[in-house]
């Protein structure tokens, strides 16, 4: 009964979505405000219906209702409750429901935080989001219904893939989807602006906080995915340029470019058509990612079970949404105008160059991801494009981008003087160059790539210091340092923090690539191995029973200079239901290094093959991403956004004051 309620709620949600997608947009075109007013209640109603469906599926998992096909396929009676609930998004159908649920959350958020927008604009935005949700609801109801029954019911479920039975997997998909789907808001803003023909600075100002929030979620989501791959897959790697990883990375790149481009549109009125195109691209790439993961056109460790009907549906949907938007763009964008002119050497110029580099990087990732498909389609053979390609094209594109990242914030709008910039930045460059050359040398191994990486990181930090110093000196009437710091807008601090996050990220990547060490050893009980100055002693394995698995747990004592540092317990688990063996690595995390131990295969006499890794600074990779996201959050807490809310709240008392005389 409960699953049928969920199914029915989805059907109703589809009806509401159709209404929400058609009436407000039509109303905005004919300036009928009662039709436009449908948007808000429709968005909220749709949210409640999708929430109902989501809860129904959650309930089916909670009570182990194995008469629901999806529940039987992705959970098991022995699976703990929190993983049963996370199993809602453990496979294709349920993850679509999660996608839809998050889309409805964003719609409700827009309906609440858009009171300051003109009514026609709001109606169009919610209308476009309604149309997007029509597509997804149709997709679910036609070829991927999570509520499909299994009659007769299964005695027990087939269990969730053991790889996904992990706390990271509980949070990673919702985070990533918040980002993916969050770009639908910026997309809807762009389409609404194209429909209405009002592409002005105000449009950019409204889009910015939404884009930044989505970008923050996306950043955390991608970082968590990478972290999950690191500790769960047991190979010690953190990024594999796998098609599905690329599918999440491409919208992130587009979103990053969009944030910077919107800044120009907001402040200077430039880059309008470009911002619109980036907004369309960011969401299109999110949709493309969905297609790649679910259609089976590319091989990937992440790919969902595939079905050609689903692939075809998403492709048609993709063609309509993206194709339609791009046609609309080609039709309306020429009238938008170019905004104010600027010199090549100016903040606009640098942001434009940065944007071009980001989009070029995006294009090369897209090319590398789809290249095997292109060749196969043209019958030119089967190839796979791997990390060497991506590393080779990515570094040369990112190096100038990072360099510009240091200069951009110091350059004036419209026109800047190159010699003056050079003088302001000569110390920053000198200091970062010397440090970058000396540090790897002190660490005992000098390579050009490590120096280049560190140069980029130190350059970002040094330019931030120069910029901060100049601005704090200029801040008028601040008096004390604290007062001066408070004078600078939070949006500025957000940028500083996010850029510093990029620097931390680069330090992490550089150090790991330059100094990591690994060993694949056969270890008898009591035997030791040395790596990176640490001594690992293997004390054998013992059997441990988990809720739905049995594990061989190894004990490894780690010591440095004779003093014990930590004890590590790597596991080799065998999950009963799918009879799958999983390597559960043990990781000793530290600020300056990770020790990473995973069990290979058992050998005779209680010995095991053991993989040991020493990974300097690896946590800085994810730490840097979190700092970037924190910068984003700081930026949206800026005064001007808070003022916008406050002004809106202030309207109520004003009306009350006006009403008073009529009462008395």
């Amino acid at each position, binding site marked *: 009964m409960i699953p049928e309620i969920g199914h029915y709620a989805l059907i109703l949600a589809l009806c509401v979505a159709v209404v929400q997608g058609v009436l407000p947009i039509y109303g905005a075109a004919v300036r009928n405000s009662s039709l436009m007013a449908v948007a808000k209640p429709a968005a909220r109603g749709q949210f409640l219906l999708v929430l109902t469906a989501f809860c129904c599926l959650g309930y089916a998992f909670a009570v182990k209702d194995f008469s629901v096909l999806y529940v039987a396929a992705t959970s098991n009676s022995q699976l703990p409750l929190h993983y049963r609930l996370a199993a809602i998004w453990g496979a294709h159908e349920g993850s679509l429901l999660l996608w839809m649920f998050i889309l409805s959350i964003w719609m409700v958020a827009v309906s609440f935080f858009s009171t300051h927008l003109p009514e026609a604009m709001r109606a169009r935005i919610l209308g476009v989001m309604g149309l997007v949700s029509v597509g997804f609801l149709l997709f679910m109801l036609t070829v991927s219904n999570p509520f499909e029954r299994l009659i007769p019911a299964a005695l027990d479920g087939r269990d969730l893939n053991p790889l996904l039975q992990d706390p990271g997997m509980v949070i990673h998909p919702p985070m990533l989807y918040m980002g993916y789907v969050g770009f639908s808001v910026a997309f809807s803003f762009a389409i609404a602006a194209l429909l209405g023909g009002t592409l002005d600075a105000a449009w950019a100002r409204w889009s910015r906080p939404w884009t930044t929030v989505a970008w923050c979620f996306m950043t955390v989501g991608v970082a968590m995915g990478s972290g999950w791959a690191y500790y769960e897959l047991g190979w010690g790697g953190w990024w594999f340029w796998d098609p599905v990883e690329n599918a999440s990375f491409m919208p992130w790149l587009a979103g990053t470019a969009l944030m910077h481009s919107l800044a120009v549109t907001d402040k200077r009125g430039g880059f309008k*058509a470009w911002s619109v*195109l980036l907004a*369309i*691209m960011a969401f*299109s790439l999110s949709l493309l990612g969905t*297609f790649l993961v679910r*259609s*089976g*056109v*590319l*091989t990937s460790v992440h790919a969902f079970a595939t079905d*050609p009907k689903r*692939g*075809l549906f998403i*492709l048609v949907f*993709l*063609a309509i949404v*993206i*194709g339609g938007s*791009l*046609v609309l*763009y*080609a039709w309306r*964008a*020429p009238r938008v105008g170019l905004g104010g002119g600027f010199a090549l050497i100016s903040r606009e110029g640098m942001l434009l160059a940065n944007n071009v580099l980001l989009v070029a990087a995006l294009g090369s990732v897209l090319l590398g991801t*789809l290249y*095997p*498909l*292109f060749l*196969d*389609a043209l019958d030119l053979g*089967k190839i796979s494009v791997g990390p060497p390609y991506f590393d080779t094209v990515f570094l040369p594109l990112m190096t100038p981008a990072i360099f510009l990242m240091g200069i951009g914030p110091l350059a004036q709008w419209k026109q800047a003087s190159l010699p003056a910039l050079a003088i302001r930045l000569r110390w920053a460059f000198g200091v970062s160059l010397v440090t970058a050359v000396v540090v790897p040398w002190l660490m005992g191994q000098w390579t050009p790539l490590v120096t280049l990486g560190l140069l980029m990181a130190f350059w970002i930090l040094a330019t931030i210091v120069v910029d901060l110093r100049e601005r704090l000196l200029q801040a008028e009437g601040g008096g004390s340092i604290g007062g001066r710091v408070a004078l600078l807008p939070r949006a500025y601090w957000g940028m500083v923090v996010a850029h510093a996050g990029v620097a931390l990220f680069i330090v992490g990547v550089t150090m790991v690539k330059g100094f990591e060490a690994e060993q694949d050893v056969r270890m008898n009980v009591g035997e030791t191995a040395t790596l990176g100055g640490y001594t690992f002693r293997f004390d054998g394995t013992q059997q441990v029973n988990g809720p739905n698995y049995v594990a061989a747990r190894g004990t490894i004592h780690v010591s440095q200079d004779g003093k014990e540092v930590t004890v590590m317990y790597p596991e080799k688990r065998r999950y009963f239901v*799918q*009879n799958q063996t999983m390597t559960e690595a043990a990781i000793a995390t530290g600020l300056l290094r990770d020790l990473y131990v995973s069990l290979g*295969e058992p050998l005779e006499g209680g010995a095991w093959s053991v993989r040991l890794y020493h990974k300097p600074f690896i946590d800085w990779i994810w730490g840097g991403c979190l700092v970037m996201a924190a910068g984003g959050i700081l930026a949206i807490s800026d005064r001007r956004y808070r003022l916008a809310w406050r002004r809106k709240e202030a309207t109520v008392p004003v009306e009350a004051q006006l009403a008073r005389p009529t009462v008395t």
Partner: protein
Amino acid sequence: MNRFLIPFGLFIVVVGFLAVGLTLNPRELPSPLVGKAAPEFSLPQLHDPGKVISSNDLKGKVWLLNFWASWCGGCKDEHPVLIHLAQSGEVPIYGMDYKDQRSEALAWLKEWGNPYQIVAVDEPGRIGINYGVYGVPETYVIDKAGVIRYKQIGPLREDILDKKIMPLVRELQNQ
């Protein structure tokens, strides 16, 4: 020509490729081992652990080598096809019980039927590595000289058997 149409044009090209991509199977990888000598093995037999089955014993005839396991879902899907083929007696099928437990494998064959002449036991999966097994089930066609002529990744289906494997087997048998 409107330069704002460029993104749309690029997109159309990508969609075209994606549409073609839907009709292709990226998992259909040509094996580098096709055309090369089948890696040798000498392993205990499933039904009689005391005896050994060696690839050298099979020289001089065309045979199929099928990697399977009792824990593998796809193996159950292809099982009726194998049984049917075994009943026709056209070509001998040898099984390779891959990373499996003896008792479970025996129970599985007892329940679903045994299409194999002899089943070899590859418990650590070493032979699977030599053959480049991506995942079970996989099936190899090996000729009289002990050369791999064809590799099927994933479950066998009647149509693959009729169109690809059996014509090849007959051709090889007549050589």
